């Protein structure tokens, strides 16, 4: 994709912390498979602040892909919009180690930044211990996550 692209899919997470890396791995798979023809893949990793830098007039749509504890079964995934949920996470400030992307989105609104259409692809994690890989329950569904993310980006 060129830098003029207006639709972005951002993968958040930490590779080294088990299922926390699912968002990053999904967008990596999308890029590796060459499925990013109508949108731009951003491998944001632990840099949640990066999400806010895409709040601009040139951005039409953001899909954030992340591990989310929404009370589902491990590996289950859902889509939602930031306004559909309330955070249960306490974050004392912002660093790449603490911070809450929902709070950052709210910060963007307060700043008066142009907030694009935002959807979140949430994958229920099983383990976020430092074990070097995804749980089997999540790894087995990678194709489903990739297909769902690409289909979401094809929607207006």
């Amino acid at each position, binding site marked *: 994709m060129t830098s003029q692209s207006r639709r972005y899919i951002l993968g958040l997470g930490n590779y080294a912390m088990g299922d926390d890396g699912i968002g990053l791995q999904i967008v990596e798979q999308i890029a590796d498979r060459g499925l990013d023809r109508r949108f731009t893949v951003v491998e944001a990793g632990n840099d949640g602040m990066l999400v806010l830098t895409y709040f601009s007039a040139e951005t039409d749509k953001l899909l954030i892909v992340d*591990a989310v504890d929404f009370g589902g079964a491990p590996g289950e995934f859902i889509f939602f919009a930031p306004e559909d949920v309330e955070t249960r996470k306490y974050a004392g*400030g912002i660093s790449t180690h603490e911070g809450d992307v929902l709070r950052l989105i709210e910060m963007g609104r307060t700043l008066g930044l142009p907030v694009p259409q935002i959807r979140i692809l949430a994958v229920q994690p099983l383990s976020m211990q430092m074990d070097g890989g995804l749980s089997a329950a999540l790894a087995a569904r990678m194709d489903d996550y990739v297909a769902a993310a690409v289909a979401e980006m094809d929607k207006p």
Partner: protein
Amino acid sequence: MSKNVNINVHHLTRVEGHGNIVVNVTDGTVEKCEWQVPEAPRFFEAMVRGRHYSEVARITSRICGICSVGHTLASLKASEKALGIKVSHQTDRLRRILKHAENYDSHVLHVYFLIAPDLLGAPSVFPLVPTHGDVVKRALRMKRLGHEWGACLGGRTTHPTRPVVGGFASLPGGARTVREAEAHLRELKDKLLAVVPDAVETYKLLCELAGNIPAFERPTEFVGLVDELEYGLYDGAIGCLLPDGSLEMVDVQDYRTVTNEYVTDQSTAKFAKHKLDSYMVGALARLNINHARLHPEARKLADGLGFKPICCNPYMNSVAQFIEAVHCVYMAVEYIDELLTVGLKDEKPVAPSSYGRGAGAADVPRGILFHEYAYDSDGMCEMGNCIIPTNQNHANIQCDFDKMVQEMLAQDLTEKQMELRLEMLVRGYDPCISCSTHYLDVTFRK
């Protein structure tokens, strides 16, 4: 003096990872004064054993989500030393541009989002949004550049995929042709030059806030890369600068003679020392060592901010980070011009010519780091050793604490004032103590 103080900061905020500050003073006598790091070991050195040389940098880049470029480059250079590989001039220049992207990106994050709240008297960046919205927006613009800059060279800014042992896996921007790659570099150059007005505004802001930087000095040893080509970040020898101005140069292959790691009861992280009880790494150390090698435009700002080497105030680390960020922008522009003048080539990575042991270093946002590996004749890793910057700073933070607490008691500061001053000191070092998780935890609205 009969003052009692009880400071117990558990998990200091706005630092990367977990660290505690504990100070107990009874009747004016300091009974305990500690910078504690309670993080668990992470075993990366064990993870690389038995892995092929082509996998090692991908693994060790995950030591840090912010300094992953530096870990990648130090890892690659260590492997290349061990494998008898000399990379091309083009690879050297592209890696330098990538290294500059990382330092710029991290410094913008640290100065604006982690340090500015201290200087503006706010507990975090969130309360600054209504009152300093333009500053936050500027910071976000600058940060976006850092990401795009790193992604252009490395494939992505965090855990870059394109740099590999012997060179690069693909051209800048993932281009299929040299011409396309050169267009990506030209586009990047335009973006770099476009950030200059924001850098100038940042400079003005820092000039305004400079008076809020605490006055504290403790002469120490400064350690950082010394590069014949430019300000030491990507390559060079280890420079060890003492307060009297003497500079000792140590070959990177002998890094253990500098780091001298040791364990201490107060921390799960190792401490380090060289000629003195402690040494400092990071932007302030580099600037003290490399001040004469700053790009002229960055030098002007350093002069304007009143920076004079050798500066022994650790709170000035954030000022040094901003000066470095400007240096990185201008140096990247120069390297792009050089590459475009010569013309890019579609190069294949250089293959190993031997198998043995080697060490590599890079000076990342938080300071110099070292990787060392040994490979068997099949190219499989037999041992790894990684020394990160923050571990090298722990002893220096502790020594600063020891001096500062005595000074603050003499100044009769309140417990709250002392606590804030100590927190600001640690944040000034920009410590990166470990990596953590970032998942969301949500409940659906009815």
